[in-house]
Structures are given as C-alpha cells and as structure tokens.
C-alpha cells in the first residue's frame, strides 16, 4: 500500500476544520410536514451524524483491509532486495517484543495463574479443575492478556517509532534511497511481533498453569491433587491449533494497526500521542473480536 495512500484520512464533518457553517440546520424538510422545527433539525442531525460515522467506519475498515492485504502480499512476493535487512530487523523485533517482555510476562502469568487456580479450587473443589483452567487460561484469558501486554509494550512503541519516522522525514529518506519503507519497516515488524506472540502465548500458558499450581501448592492448603494430570488430559491438539491461529491473527492485527496509524500521521508531532492511543485501543479491541470469533468457530 502506498504511504501516500495512507494519508487518505476521512475527515469528520463536525471536526474543527470543517467549521460550524457546514452543520445541517435540519429545517430543509419542513415543507413536507414530517420533520420541521427544532425536533426535525435534531433528528436530521442525528441521522446525518450516524450516516457520516458509518461511512467513516466503512472507509476506515476498507483502508485497513487494503493495507493488510498489501502487507501480507510481501510475504508471498518476497522482493529480492533487502532480504538480509528484513531478517535482521525481524530478529531485533523478536528480541524487543519477546525476550525483553519476559520479565513482565512471567510475573503477570504467575499472578493470574495462581489467582485462577485458587478461585476455581474453592469454587469446584477438584471437580473438573483441569478443564476449567484450560478453558479459561489457555483458550481465553491467556491470549487476551498476552495480546494486551504486547500492545502495551511493543505496539505502542512501533506506532511511536513509525510516526516519528514519518514526521522527521526518515520515511522520505528511505524512499529517496530507493528502499521500500513498507518492506523494511512494516514487514519485519509483522514477522517479529507474530513470532513473539506465538512464543509468549506458550510461555504464558505454561507459567500460568505450572507456576500457578506451584504457588498455590506452596502457600495454601487447598486440595489440588491430580491437577497436572487433569491439565494434561484437557489440553488437546485443538487447543494447540487454536493457540497458533490466535497468535497469527493477533500478530497481524497488532502490526497492521500500529504501523497503519504510525504511517498515517501527517506533519505535527502532537499527532503522535493521539495516533498511539487510538492504535492501542483499536488493536486490543480487534484482538478481542478475533479471539471471540476464533473461539466460536472452534468450540461452538
């Protein structure tokens, strides 16, 4: 996707730039007798607002989809130039996103794992404890919490970095050197973040289950005998496949949204925090949607 095309940002009709003179007054249909006066005006404004918001959303989704297809097409086309550079940047991204995040992920996984195990042990005794833990940690909360951590640590950094590069002409500098910025900035991050999420998913699940079990065993007298055996029985090939699919989808969603908003800033440095905030919230929201859709597809 063209970096130029990324600049096509739909403008909200009620934004400061558009000015109040463009607001619909809502009294144009008064001659029909159906909508007249203030009530009709407000009704028209609401309808107009909803219409514009819908169009803006559709446009946004179309741009995001086009950018996603363009980004993924690099993995198929694999341009001959720049491969070693892409490999190097992807490895650096895996280091930043996976290795450096371990010191945050491990305590979070331990806390969540032990809290879940304590609560479910109290709730159900030993009955179906392994199944419940797999259901909630491995299938649902594990992926969501890992995605949230990646978004907080890495996706925000990627948005800030790419928007900084855009504002301070570094993207222009790459283009003036004949280098494709999407190929050497966005694709390595796609590979790096997706690989990192995959690794962190597995680590989160293992730490949450085994670490949580160890913590509960050491610090409480709750009955959790046979817990690991139940877990081993509950984890099937489907759980592993679903984990892999979720990791891939989350990696794509997080990278697409963070780089899209990063490359979408124009010329003001004040746009960077806004873009970062929107990218983080939107990235997490789309990850949750994907999480639900994939779970529904496999388990309903």
């Amino acid at each position, binding site marked *: 996707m*063209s970096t130029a095309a990324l600049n096509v940002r739909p403008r909200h009709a009620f934004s400061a730039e558009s000015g109040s003179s463009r607001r619909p007054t809502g009294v144009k249909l008064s001659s029909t007798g159906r909508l007249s006066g203030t009530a009709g005006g407000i009704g028209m404004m609401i309808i107009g607002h909803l219409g514009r918001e819908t169009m803006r959303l559709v446009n946004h989704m179309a741009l995001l989809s086009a950018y996603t297809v363009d980004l993924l097409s690099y993995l198929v086309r694999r341009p001959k*130039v720049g491969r070693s550079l892409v490999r190097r940047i992807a490895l650096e991204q895996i280091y930043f996103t996976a290795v450096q995040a371990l010191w945050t992920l491990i305590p979070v996984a331990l806390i969540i794992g032990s809290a879940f195990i304590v609560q479910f042990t109290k709730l159900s005794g030993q009955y179906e404890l392994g199944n419940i833990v797999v259901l909630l940690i491995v299938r649902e909360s594990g992926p969501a919490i890992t995605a949230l951590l990646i978004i907080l640590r890495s996706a925000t950094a990627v948005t800030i970095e790419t928007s900084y590069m855009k504002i301070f*002409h570094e993207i222009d500098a790459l283009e*003036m050197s*004949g280098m494709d910025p999407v190929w050497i900035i966005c694709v390595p991050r796609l590979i790096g973040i997706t690989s990192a999420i995959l690794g962190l998913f597995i680590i989160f699940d293992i730490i949450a289950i085994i670490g949580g079990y160890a913590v509960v065993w050491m610090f409480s007298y709750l009955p959790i005998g046979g817990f690991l055996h139940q877990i081993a029985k509950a984890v099937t090939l489907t759980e592993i496949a679903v984990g892999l699919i979720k990791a891939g989808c989350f990696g794509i969603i997080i990278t697409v949204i963070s780089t899209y908003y990063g490359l979408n800033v124009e010329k003001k440095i004040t746009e960077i925090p806004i873009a970062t905030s929107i990218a983080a919230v939107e990235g997490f929201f789309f990850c949750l949607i994907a999480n639900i859709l994939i779970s529904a597809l496999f388990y309903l």
Partner: protein
Amino acid sequence: MALIEMSDYALPAIGIHRPLQPFDFSLAPNDVCRVDADTAEDAQAFIRAVATLFHPVSGTYRYRARRLNFGDYRAMLPIKKEIGYIGPHAALICNRSLRDNLIMMRSYFENTLVPTLDEETAELCHHFRLTGKLGLRPVDLELADIRAAIAVRELCKNPAVLLVENPEDYIGYANLAQLVKQMNNVIGKGRPVVYTCGHEDLVRTAATRTLSIKNGMLRA
C-alpha cells in the same frame, strides 16, 4: 533529451505560505541551475518539487521521458534513488548508527550485512571528518555532522541529478569547501545540479542557468 521535464506543475500550499504558481521546467543532462528566489520558501518548495518530495496538485513530471505516477510510490522508488537531495528535508534513520545509515543502501540492494564502508564512502567520511563518529547514532552527533553524513550518503548514491538547498547554511562553513568541491565533481561528470545559494562567491560561477522566482512565479 531533457532528464527532467515538469509541465504545468502546481504544488500544494504549505502552512500559510502561498504555493508557487504552476510552472514549466526542464533540466538537461549538463545543466547547472542556480535558483534565485525572493523568498526562501519558494526556493525550497521548487527544489523539493524537483526532488519528488511533494505530491503535485496538478501537472506532469517526466523523468527520462517517463511520466511519474505519484500515486504508486513503489514505481517511484527507482527514480527517487537517482535523485540526490542535500537539504533540511533530508534525514538519517535515528535508531541506526552512522555506519548503518551509510551502508544501508548497499545492505538493501546487495543483500549483505557486511559492516564495512566501501572505498568511496570511507574517503568522503574522512573528508567530512566523520571517520571517528561512525559508531554513533544521530542523536549523539552534532547537527553539522548529521548534515555532513546526509551529504556523504547522497553523494555516494552516485546521483543522476543533484539538488542542494543553501549549502552555506546547511552544512556549515567547516565543511562548505568540501561540499562545493564534491558538487563540482558531480558537475565535472556531466550531471545536472540544481541549487539555491545566497553566497555570491560560491558555486555561482559554475551555473549555466539561473532560475528566477519572483512573487511565486518561476522564470527560466
């Protein structure tokens, strides 16, 4: 045949400054053009337009008789690569060392991660007093060093056309003589150069044409 032909070329307005009037411009292989404008903004806008850094509002840009499509940035990359631009709009990649910045093009096009500079780049780094600073990142460098590194990178591209914005202000007096020497080397190779320069004694003698911009209107 002209190397660059811009016809009925209109630029967008930047900030509160009025844009240049639509203009026609052509650059032949041996041209050395000095841009003389009544405002610095007009001169900069013109140089950046030639550098393809602005998307035009209307008009056509032909490079070696091939019309450029500004909507397809991938198709523009081989052309942009042939244009050397030394000016405030150019930048280094800030999270890479100076050495990485200077070898990045070679890494990209030759698919290699060998961290050694080629002979020409090393020589230019020596002339611009950058040899001892190659391991540093741009944030650790003085502005003059960053600009000297940009000049080295652009000159090492072996550009088909060189565009320079106010070299005396841009690179500073410590490296100015070296930059002028390198510009003259490019001119000596028969490659076109377009530059703005407020310093009367500088490269003006090399200019074969003077482009005048008055009140936003370009006259060849």
